[in-house]
């Protein structure tokens, strides 16, 4: 047990407040604020990144005009760094509209349920060695469970809006998320079988001792690919974005939302992208281990918690880029194709993987 909350409580205890309850509340509030800040900053940065990447892939240059205190960023291509900040301010001061015929109580509640889901998930995600808000024994399972809460929020948002687009979007989204949770769970189960623990720290420690998981065996590599594909679907991103398919459903379950509530949806969505990316890098790409460890080279000054943070974020950013890369490459799937792909391709492969990896573990 080596988590941020624990160490903060230790610090508060040594300061001699003597009141452990107060220390706990303080630690929880601070940790919550930090997680919230990470989520908000991540959303702002990711939107900028996404706009630039999409622009480059489409032979455009994206936002170039808005700067922060007159500093616009790079001259030729990476300009306009203040764009999303300005957009955020615009979004927050926008009028908050609740439709007259909507179920207002549920409509107000829905974004918070979705946000709570991402927030709870983030609590269990380690950002470096020992840098986790709360270190769970059942880390992997906890994240799967906490992540599944979000569906409720989506369904409520879609139903309470009293709008057919919203409802269809919510139905599609729920069906999709529930379906794609299965291949994600099955591919993560591979790691659990090999390592014999659900704890993220143990999983990374195993990879440090042996080898990174995506080159552990061919089955692990297939599981890795299945995880990335299903992860993209889990975050409702293109090519799996039928819940908010613009051309048919306007904006899916977010259609009736605006202003602050919509920005909460947005923030949670990008937080989910980051969570999926971080978990992919922890479980399959060695988490906070330096990439040199792949070749058996251990440089002592490239390790430690801060470097771990750097490595984990560079891996996560790579995954985020891959997701954007997918988004601007592939056209959207049809609903039946989506279900076919999940139930008839990913799940059989994931199940077969599970059997094969068990045999592999028995043999080697």
């Amino acid at each position: 047990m080596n988590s941020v909350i624990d160490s903060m409580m230790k610090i508060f205890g040594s300061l001699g407040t003597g009141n452990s309850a107060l220390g706990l509340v303080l630690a929880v509030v601070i940790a919550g604020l930090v997680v919230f800040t990470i989520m908000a900053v991540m959303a702002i940065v990711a939107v900028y990144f996404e706009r630039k990447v999409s622009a480059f892939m489409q032979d455009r240059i994206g936002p170039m005009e808005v700067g922060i205190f007159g500093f616009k960023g790079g001259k030729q291509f990476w300009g306009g760094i203040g764009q999303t900040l300005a957009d955020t301010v615009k979004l927050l001061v926008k009028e908050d509209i609740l439709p007259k015929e909507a179920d207002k109580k549920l409509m107000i509640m829905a974004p918070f349920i979705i946000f709570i889901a991402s927030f709870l998930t983030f609590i269990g995600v380690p950002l470096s060695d020992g840098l986790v808000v709360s270190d769970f024994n059942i880390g992997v399972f906890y994240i799967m469970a906490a992540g599944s809460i979000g569906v409720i929020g989506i369904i409520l948002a879609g139903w309470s809006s009293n709008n057919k687009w919203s409802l269809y979007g919510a139905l599609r989204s729920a069906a999709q998320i529930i379906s794609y949770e299965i291949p994600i769970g099955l591919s993560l189960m591979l790691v659990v079988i090999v390592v014999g623990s659900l704890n993220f720290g143990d999983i990374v420690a195993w990879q440090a001792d042996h080898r990174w998981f995506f080159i552990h065996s061919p089955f692990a590599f297939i599981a890795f690919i299945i995880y990335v594909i299903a992860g993209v679907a889990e975050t409702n991103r293109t090519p799996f974005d039928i819940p908010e398919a613009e051309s048919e459903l306007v904006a899916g379950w977010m259609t009736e939302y605006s202003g602050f509530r919509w920005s909460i949806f947005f923030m949670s969505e990008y937080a989910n992208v980051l969570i999926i990316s971080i978990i992919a890098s922890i479980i399959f790409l060695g988490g906070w281990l330096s990439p040199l460890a792949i070749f058996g080279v251990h440089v002592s000054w490239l390790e430690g918690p801060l470097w771990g943070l750097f490595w984990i974020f560079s891996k996560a950013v790579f995954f985020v880029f891959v997701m954007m890369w997918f988004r601007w490459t592939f056209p959207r799937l049809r609903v039946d194709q989506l279900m076919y792909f999940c139930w008839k391709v990913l799940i059989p492969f994931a199940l077969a993987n599970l059997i094969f990896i068990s045999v592999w573990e028995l043999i080697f």
Partner: protein
Amino acid sequence: MAEVAFIIIAAITLASAFFVVFSSNLMYSGVALFFTLFGVAGLYVFLYADFLAATQIMVYVGGIMVLILFGIMLTNKIASTDLRQANRGRFMAGLSAFILFLLISAIAVTTQWHTGSPQFLDTTVAKLGMMILYQYLLPFEVASILLLAALIGAALLSRKK
């Protein structure tokens, strides 16, 4: 500290459970059930049953709840926000609930509870797995066969003739 947290969670669970029963809006009942199930997961955490708590959230909140909400939404007029439950037969329902309550209380009072200081388990997962696959293998397999049969039955029923 732990007591305060326990009381808050228990209160949330009970209050939302009452809401589930007495609310006339079916959708609100469904949403209240979400909080009840969540609260129960919280109570599991107080019993050091972390795996069970996560399973509760995963299965009930992430699965059953979604199913219930789907059911409510799709069996009524979709576009209508006016979903009402009639609460008919209150007397019979109250009677059966009371009998159930008496039964459970009787069990709770007569059972020999294990007392003593709480035992801190480092990880419950391995123990659980062992118990399911050795000690309680038969109920486990029966449950899985039941679920499989239900799955096949559902697929058969929903298939186009």
